[in-house]
């Protein structure tokens, strides 16, 4: 009876609870971030979906995918470690990690890749076949949406070393991946450094548990090597997943050791403090600090143009692909033209035209910043674009 109950708990209750915990991220939909990424807009466009500027319901899909990850991870770790509790703790630790939370905020192909690869590892296949199938998924543009790009060997090694740097992992995150970076937060919580050290030793002792870790680590290295053009945070997803597992092992092992004393409580309290601290940073500061990379300024242009029905044409200066993509998605009927700098003066003078240019092009139009009436800023107030409207 006890055995059957244990089985039911392990097979049903725990995975379902993990899924529910994962669905807790639905709270972020529409709140953080408050603007779409270019990847999301391209995906929506390709699917033929046209949503309003305040509609972020498509992100529910990201949350559901993200909620599947801890469930699949639980099944994988339970299969290898033969320990339900260890598998559960590892999955919870992964799902609440800052890196995974940031990854779950938006629709992105690497979230899909992680889900698929974990799904492969759940299947009863040989380790070698699992690895090869996962590598195929990883390297396929159909899944990742990115083509393979190699960097020279030294650069690849540097990228790998930077991905596992302690300060990047636990304090700052990656400065190059600003729109995935929670301010003042690493990929993991600060306290996790202790559990990483402890977990690295523990997982080494558990010969069965080490297999998925090593396998994911190898895939993680392949991901960094093969996607040198991708943002560091994206191309480190599998590496971070393997580190999450080690950290999870660390939590499990230390919690079991500290079961009957005050250390248990201390671990929980410190972890909760770390968790709430970064959650506050995410909710209150993510958009503000990363607005330069999220389409914050571009969405202002969209809102401005929506209020200007007299404008029939948008003229953009060179290298303003982001504006073109964002405005093109939300205002599909508006004619958008990109021109060279020398043509700006003539094109911006045309009737029913609104011109959006960057600061460096103002000189070509013999204009100073103070003379422009419309400025589109990032949250900090730094002007990204200048708008010129013919009277």
């Amino acid at each position, binding site marked *: 009876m006890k055995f059957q109950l244990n089985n039911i708990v392990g097979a049903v209750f725990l995975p379902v609870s993990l899924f529910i915990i994962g669905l807790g991220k639905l709270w972020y939909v529409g709140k953080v971030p408050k603007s779409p990424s270019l990847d999301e807009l391209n995906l929506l466009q390709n699917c033929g979906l046209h949503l309003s500027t305040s509609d972020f319901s498509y992100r529910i899909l990201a949350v559901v995918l993200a909620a599947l990850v801890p469930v699949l991870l639980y099944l994988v770790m339970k299969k290898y470690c033969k320990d339900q509790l260890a598998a559960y703790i590892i999955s919870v630790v992964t799902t609440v990690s800052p890196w995974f939370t940031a990854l779950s905020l938006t629709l992105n192909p690497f979230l899909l890749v992680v889900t698929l690869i974990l799904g492969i590892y759940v299947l009863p296949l040989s380790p070698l076949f699992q690895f090869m199938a996962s590598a195929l998924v990883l390297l396929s543009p159909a899944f990742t949406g990115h083509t393979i790009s190699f960097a020279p060997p*030294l650069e690849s*090694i*540097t990228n790998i*070393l*930077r991905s*596992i*740097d*302690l*300060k*990047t992992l*636990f*304090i*700052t995150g990656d400065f190059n991946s600003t729109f995935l970076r929670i301010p*003042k937060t690493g990929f993991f919580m*600060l306290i996790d*450094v202790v559990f990483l*050290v402890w977990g*690295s*030793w523990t997982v080494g002792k558990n010969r069965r548990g080490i297999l998925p870790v090593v396998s994911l680590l190898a895939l993680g290295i392949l991901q960094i090597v093969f996607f040198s053009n991708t943002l560091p945070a994206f191309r480190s997803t599998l590496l971070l997943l393997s580190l999450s597992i080690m950290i999870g092992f660390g939590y499990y092992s230390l919690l079991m050791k500290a079961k009957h004393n005050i250390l248990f409580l201390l671990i929980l309290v410190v972890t909760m403090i770390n968790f709430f*601290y970064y959650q*506050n940073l995410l909710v*209150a*500061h993510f958009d*503000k600090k990363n607005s330069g990379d999220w389409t914050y300024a571009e969405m202002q242009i969209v809102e401005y143009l929506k209020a200007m029905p007299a404008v029939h044409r948008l003229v953009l200066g060179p290298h303003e692909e982001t504006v073109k993509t964002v405005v093109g998605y939300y205002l599909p009927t508006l004619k958008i033209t990109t021109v060279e700098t020398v043509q700006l003066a003539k094109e911006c003078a045309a009737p029913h035209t609104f011109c959006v240019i960057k600061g460096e092009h103002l000189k070509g139009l013999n204009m100073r910043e103070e003379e422009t009436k419309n400025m589109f800023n990032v949250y900090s107030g730094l002007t990204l674009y200048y708008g010129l409207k013919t009277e």
Partner: protein
Amino acid sequence: MAIHKFAELVKKHYVPVILILLAIGTLLRFYRLGTIPYGPEIDEASVGYNAYVISKTLHDEWGRFLPTIFEAFGDFKNPLYIYLTSIPVKLFGLSLATTRFINALAGSLAMLTVYGISWQVFKNRWLSLLTLGLFVFSPPAIFFSRIAGDGIMLSAFLISAALYSELIYLNSKKLRFAVLASSLLILSMFSYNLGRIVGPLLFCLFLLLNAFVKTKRSWLYLVFSVILLAAAGVLIYQQAQIGGADRMKYVGIFGEKKATVLEVNEYRGEGKNTKLAKLMYNKASFYGLTLAGNYLSHFGTDFLSVIKMRSEVFESYYPPLYLVVTPFYYLGLFLLGRLFFTTKNQRQRLLLGVLLFWILVSPLPSTITEGAPSGKRDLAALGSFEIVSVFAFFEFLTFIKGKKLHYRAIGLTLLAVGYFVQVGIFLSFFFHDYMLHYSYNYQKRENLIAEYITAHYQGSDTFMYSEQISGRPYIYPVFHLSLSPETLWKTREYHQIDRWNSITKVDKMKFVPAFVLESFTCDKTSTGIISLFLSQEEYMLFLSSPCARSAQASQSLLNPEARLKNRVYVITLPYYEVPIK
């Protein structure tokens, strides 16, 4: 089999092997010391010149008799390195080689102390020999032995020597080594500021440990230590009175105008200054994060293993660890920690504790300053990378002992080849590429001007250049000229801005904020020759001035391929009043 034969050969000639390694290491630290890297850099020139003045007059460049701190530009340099440098300068004259000599010597002696530390802790001659072998080719050890802006290497050497002495004392109970350890730590505090942080911490540790070691006359040691500490305290207080306390204000991370405090205000503002925002975003939490991040970065792969092309003079481009050594370093840290907690041998635990304490406190000077992680401020850890890595390597050898011989042979051969390839790349970079492409970091332009001035000192009545060329230009020509202290004191004109000394005139040389080149007037009745040194921008302006035709000679001091910002032209003119902004 070849490996066994090699091992037998080394065992038979153990001492000669050590001597050969020491010779190689010394050669790497002294070879072309006066030219690689280029120099002198501004702090080297200042250190060298002050050593020269001390050697001549027992006063510093500001006329202070045997100062406890050297004012220099207003940056207040620590005294020990300058006093020691005065010896080679006295014997061989002022030059870049004699200025760098003490650091090179300290770097060479550090090979012995690092070997000694390894031997005292592990009592394994092979482990110690390999540690020495790795340290001989250590990039920061070679790099910092060859520059002299501060007593950085001297300080690191004194700390490692102190540690070595203390370990000898803990093993042998001979009191003189404990006394020596304490003395060396105190000396390290007066050679470079990293000694001010690491030195006292190690001093306290040694004091604590030695109090429990029962030896005859250990009370003498305690009394001596207290007197030494008191004396150091008095000296440091004196230094602070003169101005040494300001250094922390501009390099430290603490202060109301520093980034962390500004961030606190920014985050609170974004959080609308609510109670929660104030609870979460405050100096304690943000400084805690900054310090944690700075500290952790010294154990991160980005600092330890990634090559960075930096423009700072006192940061080694090459990281502390070669790539093949990196995994062993992390494994070594882990294994040492585990051994410390699990060993039943109290003596071993004591020695490992000292070693680990040294490793853990070494990053502190860099942790509390801006720009962390900093290779120079972390230099107290010099030698620890090799000791830890080699320890892990030997544990690894034990682990693979049962594996098939040819797998072991292939693996070890690959490791060795990988290591020597990386050593070769580093040495090639440092002794060739660095000189070729990065000499501008070492103020090549200013030194070329100074060399020109030296060569033509009698031929011109005035030499003049502006701050467009150099912020603190006087030190280069006075260094190259070995200008007599009396001439310096008699002819120097200067003013102070925020305690920084700005020299405007020394003998025939004038240094101005900026020229008004468009407004030159040509006074044909004046006598005297002026040599003007102009940047590219100033030179273009000068060419359009009415007096360009009066120029007697005009040449570029640097080849035409030099980047625009680095070019300098020297124009020789009949003397007249040069309008200055």
